[in-house]
């Protein structure tokens, strides 16, 4: 529940939906009275305004679009590596973002910002953790043998503090005597990094020449631990046999007290045997129940099958967690993953995170891997579309990220188009450049109604600000004949009052657009007449003027002007009109005087009557 200050109890709360926010204010419906006169803009926590996360959105958009174009007809065998690679791309984008955020979090002086950055880092860490596990279990779908190796990688990647500690220890004067020394060794063992453990142990060995044999024995045991090689020739069964032999050997060493005099080495020996109690003694080094899970599997059951995972996962979680502590959302998500319940993973992630980015992209990828369908969800692809629509709609309220959203809508077959139509109309058309950008997107998708509407809005705006040229070109683009007519009339009115045209460039270059409306055609042609006259091409000018008079596309208010324009041509010694044409002019004059237009002035009529023509009649 979000509390709004300054809205008191007993009052109603009014609201209004806005782009990306909701405005609330105190009111009392159907009453009057005084009250707090504040309006509060309430927003969802929005990552889209974080400049660093913006990179996440931009780059993942790139990956998303690439994913959509992967050919469906390739056999799944060759598609899987592609999907794994895409998954890794997504994760590396998350990591890059995380690292940048971490740097900023550490370097900023603003305490509140540091906390916020820190929080975002946490969330990204969790997201990457979950995604990585999903990649291992669902996308890569590692079989028994490789499965454990992948899980080990997974744990190692997310327990980076070991390396830092190790660095500290190694850089000290006497590493083997550093207080964290044994922690580092044990941590290496817990992560299955036995070579590194051995190297560390050598430092201790040199300090204790008396115990040299013991250290040699440990070194041997550590070096002989078998690890499954997926690309090798050994089968899983063969590996299992080998591993059991090794396990028995370690057990023998423990039973005959080979390490009894060195409690550290004895602990390591027990760890190698997967001793639960000893493992749990090292909760602090393990840190999490899933580290505990993987370590336990490493030393008890390295050939674990995917289907067996959830038994171990559940029991490890129970053993590791305090009986008092409640599993947290991250725990349930990971558990659902170990149970191969993709649907549950997506659901829980949607609930725990308030940005749709993660679930939208992950679900989309899983859908491409045809994994949602395999779970018998007849609404599998609907779920993908639902999440993508949510995510993209969220992007739309951002002043530049909205362009990314367009591609997402393009790949939502059912509702993508209509969502795009609804939302693109609302993009504020601050500048002509932005309007053109929006238009291009609409035109590319044959969204003709949106094109028309946007052009109309721009035309109207230009008209209100008396920018006739701009208004006209927008009307033409909107193919709005009525509006084009209206604006042409304004131009003509302008001409009548001022004697000149504005926006000559535009009118001179109308081209075929002139045909949009009669009035517009007239405007274009009339201007042409003026040009011909200026260029002293009087025959052509006269002909054009006559055709304008007779073609009946001239507005009535303009007839007198046309006749007045004819005057200079009539009054000169050389007649630019032949007798047929003169007849036509007379007809026009007659029609004109019968119409009793305001624009017909006495002076004009007299001039005409006095002109050459009439005097010769």
């Amino acid at each position: 529940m979000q509390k709004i200050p300054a809205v008191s109890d007993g009052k109603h709360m009014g609201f209004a939906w806005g782009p990306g926010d909701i405005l609330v204010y105190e009111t009392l419906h159907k009453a009057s009275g005084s009250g707090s006169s504040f309006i509060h803009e309430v927003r969802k926590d929005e990552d889209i305004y974080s400049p660093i996360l913006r990179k996440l959105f931009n780059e993942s958009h790139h990956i998303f679009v690439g994913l959509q174009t992967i050919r469906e007809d390739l056999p799944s065998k060759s598609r899987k590596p592609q999907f794994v690679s895409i998954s890794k791309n997504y994760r590396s984008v998350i990591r890059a973002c995380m690292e940048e955020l971490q740097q900023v979090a550490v370097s900023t002086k603003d305490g509140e910002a540091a906390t916020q950055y820190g929080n975002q880092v946490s969330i990204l860490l969790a997201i990457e953790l979950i995604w990585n596990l999903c990649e291992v279990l669902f996308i890569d779908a590692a079989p028994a043998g490789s499965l454990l190796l992948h899980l080990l990688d997974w744990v190692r990647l997310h327990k980076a503090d070991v390396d830092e500690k190790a660095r500290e220890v190694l850089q000290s004067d006497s590493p083997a005597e550093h207080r964290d020394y044994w922690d580092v060794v044990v941590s290496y063992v817990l992560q299955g990094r036995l070579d590194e453990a051995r190297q560390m142990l050598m430092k201790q060995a040199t300090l204790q020449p008396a115990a040299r044999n013991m250290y040699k024995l440990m070194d041997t045991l550590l070096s002989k631990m078998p690890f499954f090689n997926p690309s090798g020739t050994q089968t899983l069964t063969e590996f299992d046999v080998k591993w059991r032999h090794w396990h028995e050997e370690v057990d023998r060493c423990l039973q005959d007290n080979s390490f009894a005099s060195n409690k550290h080495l004895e602990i390591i020996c027990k760890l190698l045997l997967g001793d639960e109690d000893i493992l749990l003694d090292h909760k602090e080094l393990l840190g999490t129940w899933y580290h505990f899970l993987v370590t336990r599997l490493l030393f008890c059951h390295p050939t674990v099958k995917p289907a067996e995972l959830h038994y171990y996962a559940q029991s490890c979680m129970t053993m590791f967690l305090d009986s008092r502590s409640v599993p947290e959302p991250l725990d349930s998500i990971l558990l659902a993953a170990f149970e191969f319940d993709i649907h549950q993973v997506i659901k829980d992630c949607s609930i725990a995170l308030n940005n749709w980015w993660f679930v939208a992209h992950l679900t989309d990828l899983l859908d491409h891997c045809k994994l949602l369908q395999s779970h018998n969800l007849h609404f599998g692809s609907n779920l993908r579309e639902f999440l993508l629509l949510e995510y993209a709609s969220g992007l739309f309220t951002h002043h530049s990220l909205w362009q990314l959203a367009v591609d997402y809508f393009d790949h939502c077959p059912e509702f993508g188009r209509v969502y795009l139509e609804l939302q693109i109309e609302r993009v504020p058309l601050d500048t002509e450049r932005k309007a053109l950008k929006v238009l291009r997107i609409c035109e590319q998708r044959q969204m003709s109604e949106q094109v028309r509407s946007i052009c109309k809005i721009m035309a109207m705006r230009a008209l209100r600000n008396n920018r006739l040229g701009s208004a006209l070109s927008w009307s033409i683009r909107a193919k709005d004949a009525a509006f084009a007519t209206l604006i042409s009339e304004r131009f003509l009115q302008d001409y009548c009052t001022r004697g000149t045209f504005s926006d000559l460039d535009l009118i001179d270059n109308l081209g075929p657009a002139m045909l949009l409306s009669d009035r517009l055609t007239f405007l274009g042609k009339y201007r042409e007449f003026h040009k011909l006259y200026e260029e002293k091409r009087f025959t052509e000018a006269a002909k054009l003027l006559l055709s304008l008079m007779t073609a009946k596309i001239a507005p009535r208010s303009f007839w007198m002007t046309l006749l007045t324009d004819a005057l200079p041509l009539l009054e000169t010694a050389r007649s630019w009109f032949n007798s047929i044409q003169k007849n036509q002019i007379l007809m026009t004059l007659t029609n004109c005087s019968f119409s009793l237009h305001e624009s017909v002035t006495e002076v004009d009529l007299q001039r005409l009557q006095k002109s050459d023509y009439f005097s010769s009649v």
Partner: protein
Amino acid sequence: MFVARSIAADHKDLIHDVSYDFHGRRMATCSSDQSVKVWDKSENGEWHCTASWKTHSGSVWRVTWAHPEFGQVLASCSFDRTAAVWEEIVGESNDKQRGLSHWIKRTTLVDSRTSVTDVKFAPKHMGLMLTTCSADGVVRIYEAPDVMNLSQWSLQHEISCKLSCSCISWNPSSSRAHPPMFAVGSDDSNVTYGGKVQIYEYNENTRKYGKAETLMTVTDAVHDIAFAPNLGRSFHVLAIATKDVRIFKLVPMRKESTSTGPTKFEVQTVAQFDNHNSQVWRVSWNITSTLLASSGDDGCVRLWKANYMDNWKCTGILKGDGSPLTGSSGQPTAMSTVVGSSVQTSQNALNGMSAGRIGKRAPFAPPLRQLTSPKIYQHPAYY
């Protein structure tokens, strides 16, 4: 959710309506102080009042924007029995510099004999049409035939609904598959006769609006009504604010080819929420009809969302806490969040990694995990 900004509206009396323009860059507010104010949002997100003027001689109940295709046009309606249309005039350049604009009245619609309770523009594909409804039970539809001359409006339809009307909503769909349609709600409090929501549809043959449906199951006073954006569906979705929040689905039934009457609908109740536990006063859809907001007598605004299986749930609550607002507007105010026990867990969500659990912070790796801000959704990000 958080309060990003608080704007001191400076109305001298209660604000009754706030309305965003089509692009979300301007806002109009109206109040019992009889005035309307217009606000513009600057590039940095700050709101500036660019006009403030007296509009009526009574409380102004609603204010609404016309589609920007018609220019910058507002309509308001009031207790003073009138509705008015206003147009922004592009002012002198020094006005612009001072960030002011002028609005002039284009027309006053005085046909109503009682308080005008709602005013709405019809969908733009119908032209520039304005609809009002009044306490006298009449819905009036006006049209401005010449978009360039907003002082000329003609009363095209006068529909008597027999019950005092409180709200109207047009179906925003421009699909040719169905004729223009609007819904009227009545706040008549006599529950003995039902049908407090009526649906009217335009008939091409009679050139009139005829009643197509009455929602008989709505027997209590209705205070607000809203058609959802259509999304190309064949059916219509209508939200109603009455003693609870209701969402109806209206499915047009196949018409006989000879039938010339209004469409028959199959009416289904999609959802009914009584969480407000009191009268619900307003309902409104977001642009994509994925979220419905409602406000009630309990002083809360609730947000409702359907998941991809069309199950509706409450996804957020806003409530006044009665504390006075200190500090200048434009600064995010402190939030006091009410956190229920079930929400507490998700508050510290994602605290799985080492540090959080054991309480010791490891370097780089997971600082104590929390979400960016305290969880407010009780059923958050409902998928």
